[in-house]
Each structure stands twice: as structure tokens, then as C-alpha cells.
């Protein structure tokens, strides 16, 4: 994008960046909601899901958004008004910041920083603050419990996620996301370079840990304790309605989309498809589509787990994180490091 935008005025560039950013957040989020939440879930439950709005219910999302916009914006009397109103924005900000680091083609990116992946994982944690704000400000016990659970959970799962990525970083030898993609595109597995080196093969354990951690990070079942409907009503979302709830909702699914994209970028080769030269200008056109496809593949698994599994208990979740995932990812790092030195 930087190349394309080189000879535009600053305000034009900013406007385009803003629009592309909005599309990049909302389009995958909408796709996920329609494709998985509406349709796949319905099919897995022997029903059709929304069918009335648009062909095959494809415009249902617009109807939903319209519905949320019409709803009364309820502010609990005892709520901390400022923080209550601010919380959804904080969650959304984290989502928007996260998209910055993911490249969609050899020249398509928002920012190109050398510590890209580090930045991405760091900003993804901002949402915890938003959730904690929401839970605290709602002045509801369910919200508070949900927010505290969310905090505990996100802290616990941030760690295995980062550690799982460390394996990739060691193998790629860089923190720059674009270069990680390039490393996968040009790499070879034990001398065979036909399909590049998507790290899902060499970093399979890391990929699994990353997926589980993402699942928990997104508070999707089986790790949905923070919103656990049957226990905490909807956790930190309990007191939210209308537009503010919609923002949380967008934040949730946009984050799901972006984390899937991140997983696709780190482990499945990102915008690259084997057989073509990675610097080919063609990728600036098909790159986003390839990335979207790979993202959907990862998201399919995330949502498949979501619709199949019951949830853990909070203590079981913590045990899984600290006793299984973190040791496992440490072992993974050690092995990766050793192999890196050997080969």
C-alpha cells in the first residue's frame, strides 16, 4: 500500500487508509458472522438459519445492525457513566490496531515495522482493559465476575500464544511479519522447496498451541467463561445494549477474523500461494483474497470447536494454560532452537 500511496497528498492517503482499514476489519468480521455463526452453526444443528433477508439470508447482517441501532441505549443507573461508554471503544481500538501488522500482499500493508509481530501481540491485549472497564463500570455482579474471569483468562493465554509464536520467529529469524511470510514463501523443508515452507508443518505443535490460545483469547467455547451464558448471563456484556453492544459484537468477531488471519499469516504462508514468485505484482491483487481464504480455513476450525464443545471451568482452564500449554510451548521453543542450530 505504501508504494501505491506514495504520490498522494497526506489527507488523501489517510482517507484511503481509513477506508481500507474499515473494510479490512468489517468485511472479514461480517463474513465470519454470516458464514459461520449464521450458516455453519445452523447446518451443524440441522436447521437453515436466517433465510428471509436477501438471497439465502445474506443480508441478515444489515438487518441485525439496523436492529441494534434502533434499540434503546440503556445506561444502568449505578454505572460509571464515562467508563461504561468508553469500554466498547477500547475494545475496538485493540481490534483496529491489530489489523495494522498483517500484510495482504508483497506491497500491501498498513505499517511495516521490524517488530511487527511483537507489536501485534502487544496491542491485542488492550482489549482486556476494555473488558475490565466494561465489567467494572456496569455495576453488575455478573459483569464483574465475567470481566475478572476474562482478565484471568487473557493473561493466562497471552503467554502460550506468544511462546507459540516464538517458535515461528526463531525459524524465520525475524520479527517482521512481512518477512515471516517471505521466509515461508522462499523456505524449504529439508531441502524440498516446492511449496515453500508453511510453518504449519514444521511448527505444528506451535500451530496447535496458537489455535487453542486464540480460542481462549477470543473467549469462544470451550473457553467462553467470561461470557458464559448459562452461568453469568453474558458476563461483561450483560448491561450493554444497542450500539454499544454492537461494538462489542463487532469487536469480538473482527478480532476472531484478525487472529485467524494472523494464524494464517504465521503458519499457513499468509497471502502467498505456492508455485508463484513471491515478489510477483499479481499478489498485490490476489493476495487479499488468498489471505481471506486461508483466514476462513482457520476460522472454520475455531468455530467448529465453538459449536461442538462444552466449556471448561475457570480453574480447569487455568490448569490447562499453566500446566500443559506453557510447558509444551517452552519445549517447542527449545526443540525449534536446537533444530535451527543443527540445520
Amino acid at each position: 500500500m505504501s508504494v501505491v500511496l506514495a504520490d498522494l497528498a497526506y489527507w488523501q492517503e489517510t482517507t484511503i487508509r481509513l477506508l481500507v482499514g474499515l473494510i479490512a476489519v468489517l468485511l472479514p468480521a461480517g463474513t465470519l458472522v454470516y458464514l459461520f455463526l449464521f450458516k455453519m452453526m445452523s447446518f451443524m444443528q440441522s436447521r437453515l438459519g436466517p433465510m428471509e433477508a436477501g438471497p439465502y439470508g445474506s443480508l441478515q447482517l444489515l438487518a441485525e445492525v439496523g436492529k441494534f441501532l434502533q434499540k434503546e441505549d440503556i445506561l444502568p443507573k449505578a454505572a460509571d457513566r464515562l467508563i461504561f461508554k468508553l469500554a466498547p471503544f477500547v475494545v475496538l481500538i485493540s481490534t483496529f490496531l491489530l489489523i495494522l501488522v498483517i500484510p495482504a500482499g508483497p506491497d500491501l500493508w498498513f505499517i511495516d515495522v521490524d517488530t511487527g509481530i511483537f507489536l501485534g501481540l502487544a496491542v491485542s491485549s488492550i482489549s482486556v482493559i476494555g473488558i475490565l472497564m466494561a465489567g467494572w463500570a456496569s455495576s453488575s455482579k455478573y459483569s464483574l465476575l465475567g470481566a475478572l474471569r476474562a482478565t484471568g483468562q487473557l493473561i493466562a493465554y497471552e503467554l502460550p500464544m506468544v511462546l507459540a509464536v516464538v517458535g515461528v520467529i526463531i525459524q524465520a529469524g525475524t520479527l517482521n511479519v512481512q518477512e515471516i511470510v517471505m521466509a515461508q514463501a522462499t523456505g524449504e523443508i529439508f531441502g524440498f522447496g516446492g511449496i515453500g515452507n508453511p510453518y504449519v508443518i514444521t511448527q505444528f505443535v506451535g500451530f496447535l498451541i496458537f489455535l487453542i490460545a486464540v480460542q481462549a483469547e477470543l473467549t469462544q467455547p470451550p473457553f467462553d467463561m467470561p461470557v458464559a451464558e448459562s452461568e453469568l448471563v453474558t458476563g461483561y456484556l450483560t448491561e450493554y445494549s444497542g450500539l454499544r453492544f454492537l461494538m462489542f459484537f463487532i469487536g469480538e468477531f473482527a478480532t476472531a477474523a484478525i487472529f485467524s488471519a494472523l494464524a494464517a499469516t504465521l503458519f499457513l504462508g499468509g497471502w502467498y500461494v505456492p508455485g508463484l514468485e513471491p515478489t510477483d505484482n499479481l499478489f498485490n491483487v490476489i493476495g487479499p483474497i488468498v489471505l481471506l481464504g486461508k483466514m476462513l480455513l482457520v476460522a472454520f476450525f475455531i468455530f467448529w470447536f465453538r459449536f461442538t464443545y462444552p466449556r471448561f471451568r475457570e480453574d480447569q482452564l487455568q490448569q490447562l494454560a499453566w500446566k500443559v500449554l506453557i510447558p509444551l510451548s517452552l519445549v517447542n521453543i527449545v526443540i525449534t532452537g536446537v533444530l535451527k542450530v543443527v540445520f
Partner: protein
Amino acid sequence: MSDTADTKQMAYIAAQAADARVNLEIETEGMTLNIGPQHPATHGTLRIVVRLDGEQVISADPLMGYMHRGYEKLTEVRTYPQVTTLVNRIDWLGSFANEVPFILAAEQLMEVEAPPRAQWIRTALFEMSRIANVVLFLGDMGVQLGAVTPVFFAFRDREFILNQIEAVTGGRFHPNFDRIGGLKDDLPKGWIDETRGVLKRIRNFCDEIETLVVGNEIFQSRTRNIGVIPADIGLSYGLSGANIRSSGVDWDIRRDGGVGLVHNELDWKVWTHPDGDSFARFWVRLQEVRESCTMIEQILDGIPSGPVMAKVPRIIKVPAGEAYVETENPLGVMGYYVISKGDLTPFRVKIRSASFNNVSITPWLLKGVYVPDVISILASLYFILGDIDR
């Protein structure tokens, strides 16, 4: 219920109590959480006030009455045929089963007996209402633990059972089909064959649930050794049905002294489980659905021909006397203590509903568990609000 598990539970409770004491000593303030009356997990309007320390329950106090409809009072002004329209709203998921014990009690007082064909069809419908009821439990338990899919499977397959019940009785939820001295009507043509097909679906559903829920390691870790009820305590609280059978008590009224239904002429098995935890309660119910399918299949093969109604007067006056009849309903033992004074209406009807007793153990059971387990224990006890509040 083995001794070791019992001691474990006791030790667990003692440890929790000690923890709670320590925490109180260092003056952490507890929190009171109102679960209900409107809460996604209470399927109805049960309210549980739990006192929490962190996420651990110090004490739980269920409050009911949000749905009390005063059926015991209402029966006193309704004629015997009118009472069945009331009582099938007690446990609305297995409503035909609610009518049966009342009708049997009235029959016992009137000293009439339904003709064999009526008894067989009655038993078939009785078991079908059990399936309709428990199938929903099997799905609902998943949803309480956060798995959304099983409940849709349950609704999907329960529909077929309800269709079959509707084809005979005319009502999906409130059949009002049982009459003193027999049944309102006979089976429609083709029903038996259709029901066989439906039972296959139910068995298939049971298999699906077995892989999707029972076999799931997360489900097991959430339910095993959670909410353990020792047999003796369960009995003294009056727990019944699958709740007590999953504590290892081999007691099923259908087999042991049930009157008026033909279970004893069928070949079936009473399932028990030694553990007494949430998982056992789920597992026993799953097996019971399968067993019900077996029973209905045998009934379909063996329905005798004949009339479905004994000779009873058109205006029913039940002779003075008292009778208590209980049956093994989907939720547990349901009984009616009917006092008649020879009038058109009963003088007093005491409705002994299963859920009321089953839930009365919760203050004991919920001590020291975590909030998520409150939900899973309540779900595994399986109550219907109408059955608690009557």
C-alpha cells in the same frame, strides 16, 4: 455410592468450609449473587441466592414460588375429569405421565380397572412422554455447560415423538387423553409403524449424544465427581428417579410395585450408576431413554385387542376414601394423595411432585462448589419449574 467417594465428598466439604472460615477471618467480604429468577440457566423462574467467596459458594438458598399456580387448591373445585387438564401442566415436558398417577388413584378409589388394551397404550404413551422429557434434558445439559449444538439435536428429535403423541392424543404438550377407566380414544391407523421409525431416530439421537456429550473429555471433567449425592442422603431428602438411581439405589417403581401400567410384562432393565455425581445422573438418563425405546417397541408388538374404555358412569362420582398412587415419572416419583368424600370433586389432592424433593437437596449439595458447577449440578438434577411450584 462407595465409601471412599463418600469420605472424599465429606473431606471436600470440610476443606471448603475451612477455607471459607479462613477467608472470613482475614475479612474478605463475601458477595451475594442472585441467580434468577430470570437467568438463562434456570429454565423457568427459580431463584437461587448464593453467597460467594470469590467464585466459591458458601451457601445457596433456592427461592421458589414465582410460578406457583395453586393446583392443590384448584383441584378442590374441579371435577375429576377436569383435574387431568390441570395436572398435565405440572411437568409440561412429559405431561401425559402426570395424568396417569392421578387417574390411577381415582380408579383405585372407584375400583375400576382399565381394559388391557388401554393399559398397554397408556404405558406406551407414558414411556413416550418420558422420552419427550428426558431427550430435552440430554440436550439441555450440554447447553448449560456451554455446548450449543446438543440442544438443537434434542429439539429436532423430540419433535418426532411429539408428533406421535399428537397423532394419538391431539395435543402435543397437554394430551388430556387419560380417562378414569381407560383412554379417550384408540390408536389411529398406521401409528404403530410410524412409531417404530421414530424410535429408531431416538436411538440414533442417543448415539449422537453419547459421542458428542458423554464421550467428550471436557464434559467429563466438568461433571465427574461434581455434585456427589450419597445414597442415604439422597433418600432422606426424597430424591427419586434417575437422581437416586445414579447414586446406586436400585429402585424403580415401574418394576417394584407399580400399579395400572404393564411394565412388569415387558423385558427391560433398571439402570443404576454407583458414582452419584452429575455425570452419573446424565448417563443413567441416557440409558433410560434407550430402555424406554425398548419398552415401547415391545408394547407395539404386543398390544392386545379389545376396547379402550371400561364401563364407567357418565357423571363420575368417586366413592369416599383415600388413595395414594405414585408412578415413576420422567423426573422421578410422582404421586397423588387423593381424598374423596364421594363428591364430584376431590376433597383434597396432595400432589407429590418429583422436582420439589429433588431440588430440596440443593442447599446441602451446593455448599463449597464453584459458580459454574452450580449450573451443572442444577442442570443434572433436572427439574421443571412447574413441577417444583405446582
